[in-house]
Each structure stands twice: as structure tokens, then as C-alpha cells.
């Protein structure tokens, strides 16, 4: 029993790490643009499909496939930004969200047309045996996932807190009007933050498909859902909150699966989100934000 609890915690942390990355990407777009991008997951799915397509036809190494995943996701992300968010910059947030839903369908159809089978194999990140630590087992790819997540978060933190671009991004998140008055070019920041969010999402997507060793068109919806859920758990628009929310979601899923079975796993996560929103609507991690 106790051993299982610890094992579940380990498993939960590794899937939570992927959720955390998904949530960070989602939060970057939400925090900076104040827009919900439903096509966030589908763009990641598109990148993973591009890599899978390449692998099916030409057999690529893991590193090459990672590069293709990132390039495909950033490309799809740029397409979404141009079509959904650039035209609605001053306009309706709902219009942008609905437009991003339309592109979700488009990207999904495109993937299905190019690769009509429901499921494709994706090369594994690591094919050896799991590491045994006493009574616990730790999959090496899970360990890699944790490491890459930590490295990505550290790099992102450096970008946001040590660079001129990061200063501008934080200024836009906190006070968009004052940021413009300080001379920060808002559309320019939007485009670049979309690219950064796509990059983070692509890393998450690559880790997820290479550790589950498969891709399906459902990856798009799944990524948007998990990213949004983790973001809401952590508190809208807060980056540390997104990491915390992702880890919390992973832990909740792992433990509830063990206690109640896989059918109840997702239900538990939604139920907890419901309770959290009722009791603490600002999320686990609350930031102060001046009224704008």
C-alpha cells in the first residue's frame, strides 16, 4: 500500500511534468494576449504528425524527429496566430477563440487526410528496461521527461527574468497599456510569444508521444484539455501556477486511478477542478494584478 502510494506519486509527477509544460505554453498565450487558443493542442498534434509522417516515409533519428516536431508545431502556431489572433487584436476575444476552434478542426482534418489510420507508432525515447530503485521502478523515459521539463522551465525563467524580451513580456502581462506607453511593440511581442509557446508545447508533445510510443488525432484535443485544466488549477495567467497546476493534475490522476480505477480518473480531476473553482476561483497560485 505505502509502496504503491510512492510509486503513484512518482508516476504522477512524470505525467504532471508533461502537463506542466502544456500548461506553461497555454498560459504564455493566455497571459500575454488575454485570449484562449483552442488550437494550441492541435498545433502540437500537427507537429507530432509531421514527425510521424517523416518517420513512416524516411525513418528519422530521435533528434531529427524532435526538430521536425518543433518546426511543425511552430509553423502551425504561426498559422493560427496569423488567422485567429492577429485580426482580432483589438476586437472580440470570443471571435478569436471561435476562430481558433475552426482551425482546430482544419488541422485535425489535415492530419487525418495525410495519415488516415487512427493510430501510428512513434519511436520510443528509450527502449531499455526501467530503473529499479528498491521496490520502485522508474522508467528512464519518465526520468528524461522530468529532466527536460526542469531544463525547459529554467530556460524559460531565464528568458523572462534576464532578457530585454522577458522584461517586455512581463510588462505586457501586467499592464498592457503602460507597456505600450513604455514603447513596447505589442504585435511584435504577440508574435514572438506565440513562437515561444509553440516551442514549449512542441517539447511537451514530443515527450508525450515518444514515451507513449503512439500518435492519434486525439492528441490535439487531449493537449488543449490538459493544458487548460492545469492552467485553471494553477490560476489563470500565472506561470509558476501553471507548473504547479500541471504537477497537481498529474498527481491527482495517478492517485485517483489507483484508488478508483481508470474510468474514474478523469472524472476525479474535473470534480476537483469544480471544487477548486467554487472555493478558490483564482486558482492555487494567486498573483496580484492591478486593475486595468
Amino acid at each position, binding site marked *: 500500500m505505502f509502496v504503491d502510494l510512492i510509486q503513484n506519486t512518482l508516476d504522477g509527477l512524470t505525467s504532471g511534468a508533461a502537463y506542466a509544460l502544456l500548461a506553461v505554453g497555454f498560459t504564455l498565450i493566455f497571459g500575454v494576449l488575454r485570449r484562449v487558443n483552442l488550437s494550441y493542442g492541435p498545433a502540437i498534434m500537427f507537429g507530432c504528425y509531421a514527425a510521424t509522417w517523416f518517420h513512416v516515409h524516411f525513418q528519422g533519428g530521435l533528434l531529427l524527429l524532435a526538430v521536425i516536431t518543433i518546426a511543425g508545431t511552430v509553423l502551425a502556431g504561426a498559422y493560427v496566430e496569423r488567422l485567429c489572433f492577429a485580426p482580432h487584436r483589438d476586437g472580440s476575444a470570443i471571435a478569436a477563440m471561435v476562430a481558433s476552434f475552426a482551425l482546430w478542426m482544419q488541422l485535425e482534418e489535415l492530419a487525418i487526410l495525410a495519415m488516415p489510420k487512427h493510430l501510428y507508432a512513434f519511436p520510443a525515447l528509450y527502449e531499455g528496461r526501467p530503473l529499479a530503485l528498491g521496490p520502485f521502478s522508474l522508467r528512464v523515459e519518465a526520468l528524461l521527461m522530468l529532466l527536460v521539463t526542469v531544463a525547459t522551465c529554467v530556460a524559460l525563467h531565464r528568458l523572462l527574468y534576464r532578457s530585454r524580451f522577458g522584461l517586455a513580456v512581463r510588462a505586457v502581462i*501586467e499592464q498592457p497599456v503602460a507597456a505600450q*506607453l513604455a514603447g513596447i511593440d505589442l504585435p511584435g511581442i504577440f508574435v514572438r510569444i506565440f513562437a515561444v509557446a509553440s516551442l514549449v508545447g512542441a517539447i511537451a508533445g514530443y515527450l508525450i508521444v515518444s514515451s507513449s510510443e503512439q500518435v492519434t488525432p486525439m492528441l490535439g484535443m487531449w493537449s488543449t484539455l490538459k493544458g487548460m485544466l492545469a492552467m485553471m488549477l494553477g490560476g489563470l495567467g500565472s506561470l509558476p501556477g501553471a507548473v504547479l497546476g500541471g504537477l497537481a493534475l498529474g498527481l491527482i490522476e495517478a492517485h485517483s486511478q489507483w484508488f478508483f480505477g481508470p474510468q474514474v480518473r478523469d472524472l476525479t480531476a474535473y470534480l476537483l477542478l469544480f471544487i477548486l473553482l467554487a472555493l478558490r476561483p483564482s486558482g492555487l497560485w494567486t498573483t*496580484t494584478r492591478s486593475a486595468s
Partner: protein
Amino acid sequence: MSALLEVRDIVTAYGKIEALKGVSLEVQQGSITCLLGPNGAGKTTLMMTTAGILKPKAGSIRFSGDEIAGAAPHAIVTKGVALVPENRLVFPNMTVVENLHAGAYRRNDQPEIAADVDRMLTRFPVLKQRAAQGAGTLSGGEQQMLSVARALMSRPKLLLMDEPSLGLAPLIVEEIFRIIAELRKDGTTIFLVEQNAHMALTVAHHFYLIEQGKVTFSGTPGSLAEDEVIKRAYLGSAKT
């Protein structure tokens, strides 16, 4: 003196409602020019239009002879116009020093920016004590100083100030106006929106009255009895 800022027939609307119905005015190089008027007259709208946050429907705004009406805010900052916005709008979760660096975003002369940060901390000693603190923890007066300092970090030729005394204690208000006079002496032209007509008239070289989106009076501080100015600045002239 020549006009540094020339506003001609500016119309700015929120949807169908015109907040500015053809405003024309001038700010002379090296002067302090003040815009007075009651709430809702269009003062903030004019400031936001000049800074590029709001786009005018018609009219022209020339700065140093260049047309800036409808230009992007960052382009206007680059030309040398900075706005200290109403309610200060500091970046609350960023430190005082980070706020100052954000103000210098369009510049890329790193050593000079660092020197300017030091200059601001010397000019505004209250900020020096709180240099590493989050701007959200500052008092209203300190935030106002920070907002002014942040705008100065872009080295503007024209400083627009929207209600810098709003909600501040009388001693702080006096300090703000002392700073305004100092800045002018250092060569910065100032265009000031104020509710505190009495204080504004003590520093202004020229003032305009704006009521319901139109300039209704223009003159120098002695040209209209102060109580008449104050009455119209707060209440607007009675029109029935």
C-alpha cells in the same frame, strides 16, 4: 517659441460616441501647457490619442512637424513623446528598477540607460530606498514618482501628464508640481491634464479649457479670473 505639438481638428470616438469633436490646440516648445476641464470632457481621450493608444477618426497631430496621428504607440515614444498615464499604471509585480528599464525599452545605449536609472534614483530619493521592491508595494505618491521617472527614461522631448496629482496628499501634490517646474527648466516641454486647476495655473504658461469634447477657451493664466476657470474646469459652463 514655436509649436512642438500641433493638434488639428482631432475627432476620437468610442464606437459611435465622439469623445473629441474636433479639438485643436498647440503646445509651445519649452512651455508648460495645461488642459483643464470637467470629468468626461475628453482630457484623457486626447492624451491617449496623442500617445497612439487610441486612434483618431479624423484630424492631424504633428510633433516637431511630423504627422503622428494614428501611429503605433511605440513609434510615437521613439519620436520623443512620453505619457505619464492617469492612475500611474506601474507594473506592480516588477521591481522599481525593472519599471525604469521598461521605460527605456526603445533605447539600446546600455551604459547610458544604467546611468539614467541612477539619475532617476537620485532625483526621486523615495524610489532609491525601494529600488528592489515590487512597484505594487509603493504608496500612491511613490507610484506617481515612479510613473514619471519611467516616462522620463525614454528621454522624451514632450512629456504628457494625465492627472498626476489625482488622489494624492497635498504635500505630495506640491512635490509633483515642483518636479514639473524642474523638468521644464531642464528643457522638457510639458503638456499637463489636471483637475487641480489652482495648482496647474501656478505653473502653466498657457492653458486650454475643454468641455464636452471641444476646446472652449484658450489663454494665459491671468487672462480669465481664476475662480471662473475653476468653476468651468470642475463643472463645465452651464448650457441649457
